[in-house]
């Protein structure tokens, strides 16, 4: 536990002033921001070793900043620069290393905010974990912690390059840490084994804008995120909403289509066929329409591929008066289409005459049927198609996102 008072100490090497943002008995080292000398907080600020001071982070988080993460007040007390590459420091570029900001909260203790290629991960040490949970495990293995299944995504070693500010442990240049990382976005658990201890961390991906808001940093920062972090959630509210809506509407339209296919095909009230007949003299057939609340379906079939529906004249009459003439539909039908369906409505029930005539002297085989109480499938089929395509689009975007994941 500590107090939250800033104390200024002069560097024993260069005399520069060093700020200690908290007074915690767990603090081990304080590093001079001018010359990189690491002072032993526990033993009269003796100089332990020296770092060069050339690594920089492009994160706007700075030492001494106060901010809120997960509703807990923190102060940034230290910075640690790691890399999984063992290069001379001068050859490291910004994308080669990650920065751990050591945070301190008087009520919640120490925590870490890791910054790597624009991504922020908030982590804190946990103890309610089996000591050997991630020990001796392989990439792809799945472990369960707090009822969450985590997949091991990375096993690597990090090397410590540089520290700044105050730390609760003695970080030495070149210190090697074996890290096992298991992910279940937005959470991760990591296991770190160094020379002296084994520690488990529970980690959570936090969007940069939330960090900026918590630390009162103006959110005009460019999004520096490169790639997709292993704990990053697919974050596109519009696409996610669209996927939910399209999935529901796809299922709904499938059920409706099935229902209509089974129960909405209608009741046949007329069926006849002709072949080799001269229809120049119109044929009239009586049909009794008893339901006009739904659609009627006139279905014309021909086995003759060279048929021309525009050569026919079909209409429905009542009391010698043409109620429905199908010439438009017949003219618009494709020339060689063997089958056409015409959906229509009638104003009233009753007896009608179906009049069929043709310019052709010897008509090829045609079959004419009329059904009432018909539900058309095409609107629901279109709904299904739109939903399906929307859902496929979401899956494609999601897949592209997952391909970029580290």
């Amino acid at each position, binding site marked *: *536990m500590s107090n939250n008072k800033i104390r200024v100490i002069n560097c024993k090497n260069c005399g520069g002033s060093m700020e200690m943002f908290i007074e915690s008995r*767990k603090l081990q080292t304080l590093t001079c921001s001018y010359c990189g000398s690491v002072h032993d907080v526990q033993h009269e600020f003796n100089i332990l070793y020296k770092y060069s001071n050339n690594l920089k982070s492009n994160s706007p988080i700075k030492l001494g900043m106060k901010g809120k993460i997960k509703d807990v007040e923190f102060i940034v007390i230290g910075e640690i620069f790691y890399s999984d590459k063992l290069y001379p420091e001068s050859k490291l570029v910004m994308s080669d290393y990650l920065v751990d900001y050591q945070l301190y909260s008087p009520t919640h203790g120490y925590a870490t905010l890791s910054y790597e290629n624009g991504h922020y991960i908030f982590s*804190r*040490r946990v103890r*309610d974990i*089996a*000591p050997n949970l991630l020990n001796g495990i392989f990439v792809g293995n799945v472990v369960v912690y707090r009822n969450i299944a985590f997949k091991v995504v990375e096993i690597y070693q990090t090397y410590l390059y540089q520290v700044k500010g105050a730390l609760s442990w003695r970080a030495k240049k070149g210190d090697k840490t074996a890290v096992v990382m298991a992910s279940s976005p937005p959470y991760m658990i990591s296991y770190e084994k160094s020379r002296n201890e084994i520690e488990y961390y529970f980690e959570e991906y936090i969007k940069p804008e939330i960090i900026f808001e918590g630390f009162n940093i103006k959110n005009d920062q460019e999004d520096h995120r490169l790639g997709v972090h292993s704990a990053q959630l697919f974050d596109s509210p519009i696409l996610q909403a669209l996927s939910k809506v399209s999935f529901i509407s796809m299922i709904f339209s499938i059920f409706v289509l099935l229902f209509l296919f089974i129960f909405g095909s209608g009741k046949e009230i007329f069926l006849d066929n002709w072949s080799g007949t001269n229809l120049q003299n119109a044929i009239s057939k009586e049909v009794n329409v008893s339901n006009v609340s739904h659609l009627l379906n006139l279905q014309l079939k021909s086995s003759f591929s060279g048929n021309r529906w525009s050569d026919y004249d079909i209409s429905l009459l009542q009391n010698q008066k043409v109620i429905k003439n199908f010439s438009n539909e017949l003219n618009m039908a494709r020339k060689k289409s063997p089958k056409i369906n015409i959906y229509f409505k009638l104003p009233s029930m009753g007896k009608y005459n179906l009049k069929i005539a043709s310019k052709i002297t010897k008509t090829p085989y045609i079959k004419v049927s009329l059904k009432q109480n018909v539900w058309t499938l095409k609107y629901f089929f279109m709904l299904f198609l739109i939903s399906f395509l929307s859902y496929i689009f979401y899956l494609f975007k999601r897949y592209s996102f997952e391909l970029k994941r580290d």
Partner: protein
Amino acid sequence: MSFSKTINCPQCGVSLNNVIKYTALMKCPQCGSVLVYENESFRSMGKIATLADEPSLLCLNQSFSYQDVKFTPIGKVRYRYDIGFWEEWFVIDSKGKEFWVSVDEGDFAFEVPFDIKKKFPKKSELKVSATIFFEGISWVVSELGEGSCEGFEGQLPEMIRIGEKFDYIHFTSLKGEDFLSVECYKDGTQKAYRGYWVDAYEIKRVS
């Protein structure tokens, strides 16, 4: 609280409300006297220094919730060790069940006293990461150290030994679910507490 009573401080006479039935030791918030429960009454044992105020997620008599259960801290003990101090908070839930909550810079554990029948290995015989089999469970030694009690506030269900040094050994079960803390005093007394670690971020103050 239905399981509490009101007494008067035998030293200053102030009325002390909500003294719970488990209380064996308490500190008068008015005069700072240490009151010990003996023969069905409280007796003053003199005064001790007030603990320095330190920021904490838990506050005496201010309820908090953890996993939808409400707890009220009614006493705390502060222990010092090589790199700082930790606190043991005596809390009761809404049904009057008692617990200890161990708090050390973000590490929180709920514990209850645990009766150990056989003698525990000495601290010097153990090493961090060593595994021992005890009470049917394999335990991993997670921390070893020496501590001493600095003082207390509020009400406690048991006597404490202020200023006396003891060795402590922390164990975590192999599965990580259980936590065992053993305190070994120089006179051979052993006290043990068994519990589980909790996530400080799931503890919420109840206003």
